[in-house]
């Protein structure tokens, strides 16, 4: 299946009839996708509403350009926010990298024990909600195994979460 067919196939199930440039980035290289989109526009199979915004011609007739552009702007914003959130979530802070390497060198991995469930319940009962990430888990594991002092653990937890806030 060529890129044009894949673009049309990805557009077919969309109820809003909109195709954003971001939607096509996994279908081929940027230049290949550009050529395919231009060809589809020239063939009248899709209509270009604005830079990076395309729609099914039938939807443009039905809803009008303005309404579609409004929806497209909203969807683009949501996609951007989601992407940013994912990048923040997945990004390794310098502290996280250090902790990961240390745990690997020391042969320490995190295995949940009763204390983790207990601590979660106590924290919830205190009216707080804390979600530990994998770096926190590794720091706890390193401390439990005696490879790190509790004081160093606290310093690294604080540094890691300060790094995350700065990302």
């Amino acid at each position: 299946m060529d890129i044009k067919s894949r673009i049309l196939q990805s557009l077919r199930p969309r109820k809003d009839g909109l195709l954003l440039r971001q939607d096509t980035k996994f279908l081929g290289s940027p230049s290949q996708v550009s050529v395919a989109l231009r060809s589809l526009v020239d063939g009248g199979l899709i209509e270009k509403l604005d830079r990076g915004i395309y729609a099914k011609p039938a939807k443009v007739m039905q809803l009008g350009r303005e309404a579609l552009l409004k929806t497209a702007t909203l969807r683009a914003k949501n996609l951007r926010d989601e992407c940013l959130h994912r990048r923040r979530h997945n990004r390794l802070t310098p502290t996280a990298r250090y902790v990961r390497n240390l745990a690997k060198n020391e042969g320490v991995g995190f295995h949940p024990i009763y204390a983790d469930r207990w601590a979660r319940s106590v924290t919830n009962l205190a009216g707080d909600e804390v979600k530990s990430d994998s770096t926190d888990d590794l720091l706890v594991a390193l401390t439990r195994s005696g490879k790190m002092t509790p004081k160093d653990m606290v310093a690294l937890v604080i540094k890691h979460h300060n790094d995350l806030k700065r990302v």
Partner: protein
Amino acid sequence: MFDPFGDYDSRGYLRNTAGEKDLEIIKIAEHELFRAQLPIALDFLAQCKRIDYPDFLEVHRILFSALYPWSGKDRNTVLPARSVVRERFTFVTQKIVNVRLRKGFRLLKTKNKWQ
């Protein structure tokens, strides 16, 4: 803001070891420290023949001393002659705490008292 020491601006929340002021980060640090130290605190309690007030303070020290250097110390030592207020609640005075705790521990020593 809960600031019984009255020096949040210069020394962070409750004089924590990192001088951190962000409460969200402090909550996480407390939680992770509790997770890491809980097995040690329970091992300590398991070897106590009787649990008394000094043991109670020791558990607090084991759990939180890496974050709060004053933990495990009696409030009379840490905050003498100062009443502690948090939101709508005023903590009972240290004198009453000591009396009640000692009574509680005396009751604990009595066999089957809690059953």
